[in-house]
C-alpha cells in the first residue's frame, strides 16, 4: 500500500479512536493487517507490549511531521497520546472507501479493548501466526506457554480464556 494510503488509514483510526496511545494503535493496525487483511505491509516484531512495527512508528513520526496527527507525551513519561493534527489528507476519503468494511469490523472487535488486553491478544496471534518456527506446527499448549513466557503478568487461565476469545473473533471474520 502506498504511503499516502497508509497515512489515510491511520488518520481514520486516530479520528475514530479519539485520544489513542501507541500500544493501542500498534495493536489495532496489527489486527487490521493480519486478521482483516488490509494490505498495509508493516513488518511486525515481538516487543515487550506485544506485536510492534518499527515501520508503523516511523509512519507515525512522519505523519506528525506533516501535521496529520499530533503526538504528545503522557505526563508520567511512559506512553503517548495521539490525536488528530491540523492538516488533512486529500485522498483520505477514497482510500477509506476501499477498506470501510474492514476498518469498521476491526474497530468494532478491537476498538473498545484496553491496551493490556490488546497486548495479550496480539501476542497470542503473533505467536500462532507470525512468529518464526522451525517447521513444527504449534499446538494450543505451546502457543499459550510461549505467550506466558512473553507476558508473565497474565495468569494461565486468563491467557487460555483470551486465546479462545481471539479464536472466536478470527473465525467469525
Amino acid at each position, binding site marked *: 500500500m502506498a504511503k499516502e494510503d497508509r497515512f489515510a488509514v491511520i488518520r481514520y483510526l486516530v479520528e475514530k479512536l479519539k485520544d489513542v496511545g501507541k500500544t493501542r494503535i500498534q495493536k489495532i493496525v496489527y489486527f487490521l493487517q493480519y486478521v482483516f487483511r488490509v494490505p498495509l505491509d508493516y513488518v511486525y516484531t515481538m516487543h515487550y507490549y506485544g506485536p510492534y512495527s518499527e515501520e508503523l512508528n516511523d509512519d507515525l513520526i512522519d505523519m506528525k511531521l506533516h501535521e496529520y496527527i499530533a503526538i504528545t*507525551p503522557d505526563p*508520567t513519561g*511512559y506512553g503517548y497520546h495521539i490525536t488528530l493534527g491540523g*492538516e488533512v489528507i486529500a485522498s483520505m476519503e477514497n482510500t477509506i472507501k476501499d477498506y470501510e468494511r474492514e476498518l469498521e469490523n476491526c474497530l468494532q472487535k478491537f476498538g473498545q479493548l484496553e491496551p493490556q488486553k490488546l497486548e495479550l491478544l496480539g501476542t497470542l496471534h503473533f505467536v500462532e501466526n*507470525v512468529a518464526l518456527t522451525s517447521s513444527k506446527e504449534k499446538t494450543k499448549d505451546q502457543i499459550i506457554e510461549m505467550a506466558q513466557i512473553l507476558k*508473565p*503478568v497474565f495468569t494461565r487461565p486468563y491467557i487460555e480464556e483470551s486465546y479462545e476469545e481471539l479464536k472466536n473473533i478470527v473465525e467469525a471474520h
Partner: protein
Amino acid sequence: MDTEALEKSEFRDPVHGFIDVYEHEREIIATWEFQRLRRIHQLGLQSYIYHGAEHSRFGHSLGVMHLAGEAVKKIFEKNKEDLTRSLGGGEDESEALKETLYFAARLAGLLHDIGHAPFSHPGEDKLFQAKLRHEDYSVPIIRNSRIASIIDGYRDKTGVSSEDVVNILDKHGIYHFPFVKELISSYWDVDKMDYLLRDSMYCGVEYGRYDLPRLIYTLTLDKGYVSGSLQLAIHVDGIHTIEALILARYFMFTQVYFHKVRRSFDIILAEFIGDCLEEEYGKRTYPPPDSLAEYLNWDDNLVLTKAREKADETQKNLAWRIIQRRHYKAVYQTLRHPDPLIKTKVGHLFKECEKEFNGVRFWLDRAAGHPEMFKRESLPIMGDNIWPPASLAKESAALEGLKEINQYRIYADVKEDDILHRKIQDFCNNFMR
C-alpha cells in the same frame, strides 16, 4: 556446559583493545560467509569524504559481539535472581544461565550483519525485492551455511543452538529473554554503541564519542515494572551516558552519515548497482534469499571491479563517477529541521527544475532520521531509592529539544559544468526566496 573447555584467543580491536574470541566463534569467523564481511565497507563510500573511513562490517561485527557479551555479564550480575527465577530455576542453574545468555548474545552480535549487501546501506530501499532488507538474508545464511552446524556442534559447551541465535536476530523470532533481543536491536543496542565509536575513529571525527564503559556498567533490567517482562533499563547513574549516546548518534547523522557528498554517492552507487543487477538478472534487485550463493557473490570488490571496467570519462557515466570520485552536485538544500511550508515548496522546486533545465537529471533526496525516537521509547531508570522506575523520556532535560532530522536536497547531474551548476543554484535560490 563447560566454558573452560572452550579455547580462547584474543583479537586486537582498534576500538575496544584486546577482545576474547572463543574457538566456535573463530570457526564462524573463518567461514566464507563471514570473511565476505571484510569486503563490505561499513559506510559505503564515506571514505570519499573522510578518507579514513575504509573500515568494514567485519571489524564492526567483532566489536558488537564483544559488547553484547560484556553487557550481558554486567546485566546478569545485577539481576541474577530475577533472571534465574524467570526461568523457574534456582541458584544452581544461575551460572549456566549466565553463560548461555553470554554466548547467545555474543553469537547474535557476531552474526547480526552477516546478510549485508555491498557498501552496506546505499540503495537498500531500492535494490532489494519488495519489503526485503539485509536482515532477511541473515537467517537463511546462518541456517544454510556451515555456521548453523558450528553453533550446534558446540551446544553442549555454550548452551546455545543455532535456532536460539536465529530467534534473537530474526524480526519474527521469539527468544525467552527478550532483553537480549533488545540489546542486539533497539534504540540503545550494542550495534549503535559500537558503530558510533568505530565510525568516529575511522572518520577522524569526535562526534560519535561517549562514555562506553560507564554505559555498559550502568545497564540493568527493570524488574518487570514496565511490561511484566524483564526489560532493559539504565541505572540512574548512567542517565548522562545514555544521553551522550543519543546526542552522539544525532551528531553523527548530521555531520557524517547525512553529509551531502555521501548522500550523492549513495544515489550514484544505488543506480550503478541497479544497472549491474539488471545486466546480470534482467531486473534491478538482488537475488532473493532462496538464491543465497548468487546474493553472497555480490560484495564491494565485485562492484568496484565492474565500475573500473565500465568507467568512461567521455560519457561521465556512473562507473566513472565512482572510480574518479565525481559526485552529483547539490543545487539546493533545506535546513535539517525545515518547517512544513518549505518541504512542500521543495517538491514544487524539484518539478520546476526538471521543466526549466530540460536534459539535466535531478534527484530529490530526503535525509530523515528520528533521534527523537529515543525519547519516544521509555527506557526505565532504576536506582536504589527509586521506585517506581522513572522514565528517560521524562527525566532527560538534555534530550528535550532534540528534533527529527528531515533534510531535503536536490542534486543535479551537471556533467562537471560549473557554469550550469551555478545557474541552477541561482534558479533554486530565486524560487525559494
